[in-house]
């Protein structure tokens, strides 16, 4: 059953066809890897689907509802969340605060100006529990600006996860971290996503990560979808190996 479907989705930047009439489908419950060389249109596609950029044309249908013209807020309410390639956190707030904000927002409580945030113990307990799931509980009271890059990447995903989305876009969750940190980050993220039955779309450049953790792979090239299939099918796809993977996995 498809959770998300785009039809002829298009985004141009001047003469550049960043997303060129893309038909893209995400099935419920899968971990899908979106790969392609730099400038292939992966992040642009996610930006358009998540609402950061507006589509020039085409449709986005999420859970049988057309969300193409919806605001970011409405898409989040519908169940779409995302993390960012360049980590986006609230650096002057603690890790707990970062997560609590997602929870307050999810519960429609960020409008409450008449109660003290600290009184909502259930929110803080949930925030702490999520930090524990992501292995960040020991840093709960540290400012987000003061933790390592790998931890920031995890927190970025955790903030999106705290919205309890149906569909989670992870834009290069291991970029900028050391080689040794990549697998532990992906282990944590994929185990949480799978255990909570969240559908995830992961943009990733590291092919070891892609082939190890994804159920399905979609390859983009010059704004279009070049290939779509299981990791084995993609590994054997000649067009993909020629344009993207080269000889490393061929």
């Amino acid at each position, binding site marked *: 059953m498809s959770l998300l479907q785009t039809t002829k989705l298009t985004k141009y930047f001047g003469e550049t066809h960043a997303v060129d009439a893309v038909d893209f489908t995400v099935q419920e419950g899968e971990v899908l890897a979106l790969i392609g060389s730099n400038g292939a249109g992966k992040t642009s596609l996610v930006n358009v689907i998540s609402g950061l950029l507006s589509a020039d044309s085409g449709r986005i249908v999420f859970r049988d509802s057309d969300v193409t013209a919806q605001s970011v807020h409405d898409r989040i309410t519908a169940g779409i969340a995302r993390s960012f390639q360049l980590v986006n956190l609230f650096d002057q*707030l603690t890790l707990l605060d970062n997560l609590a*904000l997602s929870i307050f927002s999810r519960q429609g409580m*960020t409008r409450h100006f008449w*109660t003290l945030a600290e009184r909502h113990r259930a929110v803080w307990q949930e925030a702490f529990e999520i930090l524990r799931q992501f292995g960040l509980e020991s840093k709960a009271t540290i400012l987000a600006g003061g933790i390592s890059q790998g931890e920031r990447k995890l927190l970025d995903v955790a903030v999106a996860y705290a919205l309890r989305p149906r569909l989670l876009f992870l834009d290069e969750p291991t970029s900028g971290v050391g080689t040794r940190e990549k697998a532990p980050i992906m282990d944590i993220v994929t185990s949480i996503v799978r255990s909570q039955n969240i559908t995830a779309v992961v943009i990733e450049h590291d092919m070891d990560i892609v082939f190890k953790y994804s159920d399905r792979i979609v390859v983009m090239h010059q704004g279009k979808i070049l290939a779509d299939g299981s990791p084995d099918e993609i590994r054997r796809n000649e067009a993909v190996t020629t344009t993207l993977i080269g000889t490393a996995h061929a």
Partner: protein
Amino acid sequence: MSTVAVQLEVRSSIKALAVGAVLSGLLVVLPFGIDPYQTILLSYGLVMAIAALGHNLLLGYTGLLSFGHSAFFGVGAYAVAFMVKYLHVQSMELFMMGALAASLITALLFGFVCVRYTRIFFSILTLALSQVLWSLAYKFYWVTGGSDGLRVPTPKLLGVSLPSGEDKINFLAHSYYYYVLVLFLACTFVMWVIVNSPFGKALQAIRDNETRARFVGIQIRRYRLVAFLVSGVFTGIAGALWVPLNGLTTPDILYWPFSGEIVFMSVLGGFHNFTGPITGAIVFNYLKTYAVGFTVYWQAFMGVILVVLVVALPQGIVGTAIQLTAWARKRFFR
């Protein structure tokens, strides 16, 4: 859950309320220990502290630097003056309601335009709009009194007017001081709840990272507008409380240097913490008063202080005090 418990304990509001209660008690007894002139100066400081608290909701908590808060202060003051001149109102409570409504409407109009922008664009827009009000107050002299301004006599407090024969200085240093103090404490408490509420957290999120705030579902413009309204109303209340103290309102309080003074207060006290603007406003008021009496070059004196502050104490008085306390604790009580 032990870490959460520790976290909640650290954040406990009891400590803050206890400190607040002690300081409030001190402010209550202070007029008995200082002369009336000093008490009136303190009243001015408390009034400006309300304005600075309002301003800092935008600067410190939402990340928006307004250079136009003189507009709300002036609207509050002129609302009182108009009520005296055209409606012959004498009640301070009616003045407060009139000022609140006038500043709310002004903040709504200004905010509708300004919150669409951030950084320098927001600052310049607030500055420009406040100057429109200043020019109106200056040019429409048959309504506003022009540069002569409008006089505001001693108001009735809770329906009680100044007894005949009572000295106005005595009134301002006692009855009016306590009136200001009660409103100052109420405003401080309300603002403290706001900045520590989920809404206050959302404002801090917007300040830190607008994109991420958007992607946790916060509707940025709407939240900024609400913060702008609250900020404007607080500053308008300050304007209304200020005008009976001063006895006169002139276009000077709508002019941009007055907005600069409110910014100065936040920076002086430290806009990264809640009590910074309060401290800054009170200290600024004393500094300015004594600098004016000390030298004709008082603006230069204040300018030097501002430069020193930005270069040497970017955290402001309260921020620096907190840092020094933390350093001393680490150094001597380890």
